[in-house]
């Protein structure tokens, strides 16, 4: 490429694009810098005046408050352990909420496209209702109207649903906590964990082997059956060999009926947050599913009719794989929204990171550092989810031959 000869008469400075570009950027930086300097300068002055320090040493100090349903956490536990508890509870509510939203959203999204008038209208009503109310209202409704002041009795008079013919309790229902059967270790848990890991790896290897075989020879792969079989076989053998490392722990109330002594207890805060966000996000998931199914060209469906595929085959092998490619990015976005929405638990006191940060600031911990930690935690979750999105996107991209 040949560049034209530079003109000898240069434009004046204020009309020279090169100068303007540099000047504009310098001006932008200076303005932003000045604003930040003003804000941070005020912050330093005010902190100095109130004698608060900027370091993170408070993380090692005792929290001075108790977290409900966390017996191993006491007021002397350091603040960093509180942060870990918060992160764990945020992740738990997020994961269960996402699972609920995914399953429910899939059903409702497909239901909206159903030929059945009743199913289609019910799904549409669900979507239009939940999409247009704040998620916080749903959470608060669960926490106050379903649990705390709802129809269930308190723990003292908890409903104990027996398991038929065994004299054991299968379920304890109260307005604050539910007890469900859990698992209890009888030793050898580590060995069982290792063998479970081995089982998963073996199942994955078998999966690949069957897929390859199918690609090479065209033999039917039956990879789901094969992998599940291998997985279950290894698990059962190791369970028996280790003499039953895990047994079912049936729920039971303590003597004074103040708490659930054994089994797995779920508190109402968790159920409110995960349940409400699951229901709320399901309406968005349903819309995404419906939109993506509608976005698959009609010709694909016609082609599968021409091949005389059954309804199931048409969905399983033609429509859904293509719809999923469209649906996955917005679905993962919804998952991220759900995780961020778990912060609404602060309104009902479920001990996730936002609630704990608010309590801890109320207890005199420095606000700036606490909020910075809070933001870093959420940014971490966001980065994690976008990483997953990128990996999935790469795998889902059309492979053109």
């Amino acid at each position, binding site marked *: 490429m040949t560049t034209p000869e530079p003109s000898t008469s240069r434009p004046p400075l204020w009309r020279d694009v090169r100068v303007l*570009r540099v000047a*504009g*950027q310098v001006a*932008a*930086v200076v303005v*932003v810098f000045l604003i930040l300097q003003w*804000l*941070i300068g*005020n*912050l330093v002055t*005010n902190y100095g*005046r109130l004698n608060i320090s900027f370091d993170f040493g408070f993380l090692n100090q005792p929290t001075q408050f108790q977290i409900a349903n966390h017996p191993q956490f006491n007021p002397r536990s350091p603040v960093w352990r509180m942060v870990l508890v918060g992160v764990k509870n945020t992740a738990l509510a997020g994961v269960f909420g996402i699972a609920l939203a995914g399953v429910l959203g899939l059903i409702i999204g497909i239901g909206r*496209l*159903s*030929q*059945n*008038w*009743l*199913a289609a209208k019910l799904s549409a009503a669900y979507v*239009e209702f939940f*999409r*247009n*109310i*704040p*998620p*916080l*209202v749903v959470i*608060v*409704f669960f926490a*106050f*109207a379903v649990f*705390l*002041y709802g129809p269930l009795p308190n723990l003292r008079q908890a409903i104990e649903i027996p398991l038929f013919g065994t004299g054991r309790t299968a379920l304890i229902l109260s307005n604050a906590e539910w007890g469900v059967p859990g698992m209890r270790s009888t030793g050898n848990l580590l060995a069982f964990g290792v063998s479970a890991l081995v089982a998963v790896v073996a199942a994955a290897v078998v999966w690949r082997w069957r897929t390859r075989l199918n690609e090479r020879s065209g033999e039917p792969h039956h990879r789901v059956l094969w992998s599940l079989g291998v997985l279950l076989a290894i698990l059962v053998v190791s369970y028996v060999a280790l003499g039953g490392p895990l047994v079912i722990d049936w729920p039971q109330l303590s003597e004074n009926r103040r708490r659930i002594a054994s089994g797995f207890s779920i508190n109402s805060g968790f159920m409110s947050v995960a349940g409400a966000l699951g229901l709320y996000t399901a309406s968005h998931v349903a819309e995404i599913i419906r939109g993506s*199914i*509608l976005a698959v*060209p*009609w010709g694909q*469906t016609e082609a599968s*009719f021409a091949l005389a595929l059954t309804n199931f085959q048409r969905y399983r092998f033609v*429509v859904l794989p293509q719809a999923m490619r469209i649906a996955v990015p917005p679905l993962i976005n919804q998952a991220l929204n759900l995780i*961020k*929405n778990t*912060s*609404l638990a*602060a*309104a009902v006191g479920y001990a996730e990171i*936002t609630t704990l*940060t*608010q309590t801890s*600031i109320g207890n005199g911990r420095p*606000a*700036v550092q*606490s*909020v910075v930690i*809070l*933001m870093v935690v*959420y*940014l971490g979750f*966001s*980065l994690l989810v976008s990483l997953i999105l990128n990996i999935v996107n790469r795998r889902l991209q059309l492979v053109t031959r």
Partner: protein
Amino acid sequence: MTASTLEPSPVQAPVGGPLTWVRSRLFPNLRSSILTVLLTPLLAYALYRAVLFFFVNGRWDVVTRNLTLFMQGTYPRDQQWRIVTQIIVLAFAFGVGAATSAASQVDAAREAGLPVVKQGFLSVLKRFWSVIAFVLLLLYFANTATPWLVMGGAIAAFALGSLARFIPRRFRSVGWTLSVLALVAAFQVVAGTVGYSWMITAVVLAAGAWSAFKFEGVEGRRAVVYRGLAAVAAAVVTYLVYMQLVFPGVGWDHWSGLHLTLWVSAFAIVLSFPLGLILALARRSSFPVLRWLATGYIELIRGVPLITLLFMGQYILGFMLPQGTDPSSITRAITAMALFTAAYVAEIVRGGLQSIPHGQTEAALALGLPTGKMMRMIILPQALRAVIPALVGQFISIFKDSSLLEIIAIDEFLGVRSLVHAQADFRVVAHAETLVFVAIGYWAFAYAMSRESQRLEVRLRAGRK
């Protein structure tokens, strides 16, 4: 648009009686019949419980006795006339706005030689049926005459405002100015005209003067100077009038209830839009530094939930301002909401900017337009038009998110619940009733907005075809 449904349409339009309809829609085949048989009793039971809740067992006195609390919260009761006036002035503003918008659409259609289709009164009712139903519900719960009187006044004011359709075409911009001015006045009836409030009015009137005086016949530059002078004159006059007008009001730190929810959402929407526009343009700028700054801000904000920003406003912003400046918690919350939403608005606008074919930019440059003019006259009108539905979706989301103020102890529509249930009669009962009422309130507004956005989407798509 190709509206392809996945299922082959199994039946032709049923021509028979209701029995044919039932058979084709509910029992077309075995699977569908099983579904119908399973769903019907579930639905019947749900309806039965709902009827019991709404008409038999529900303690709806929690709403009837606290209706004022839900609407205006702890707002001083002896200043209620301000809110009443506000509602009536707002109705006037909407009347003028609707009439002006309708008139300009009719003009546009005539100009394009298209037939003018009169929109019936019924179709407007249909578009906003959810809000109208909510207002009727409020009137049903009301046990004084005031709400009825306010309602009557509002309808009369709306009708008065719609007379704006008779403003001749040359002065159409006066209609718009009048509408916005009435909106500002409605705000200031409650908030008062003290402090910096003259600035808002001055800006509105200056913009009004700029667009009203076109100085046709005066050539080029000189017209611009004249219009500028008119705008400045309007602003100065406003300032002088406001200095004479001593009208103290009730500051918004004393507002609460649905009244606060609506104003907070409105402010967050209005403030977030210009911020988001600037961020979007910065992110698309050819200056790398601007791009990095905007990208960093947008990604940071989008990675954290709104509540963290509200916490920043609540716990940190006070430290970041010089000692003595102590903005009210509502001001801080609105700031946080606007800063948060701006990042999302920026991403939506960026999507719109990216959807404009590059040929448009090239054509504008070929015509010798400078960058600013190109953006203002060629790119932005097309980009913003394309993203209006997405923007409305974002605004619905702010409206819903205004409920988060409950967490930082501001008693907006949802937060009022804590006041209601502090009363001895309702300490442990009627929580479900309160929350269902609140949910219906939020739903009515959000649903109306989402319907409007769908309507816009269809209309814009039709326009592009």
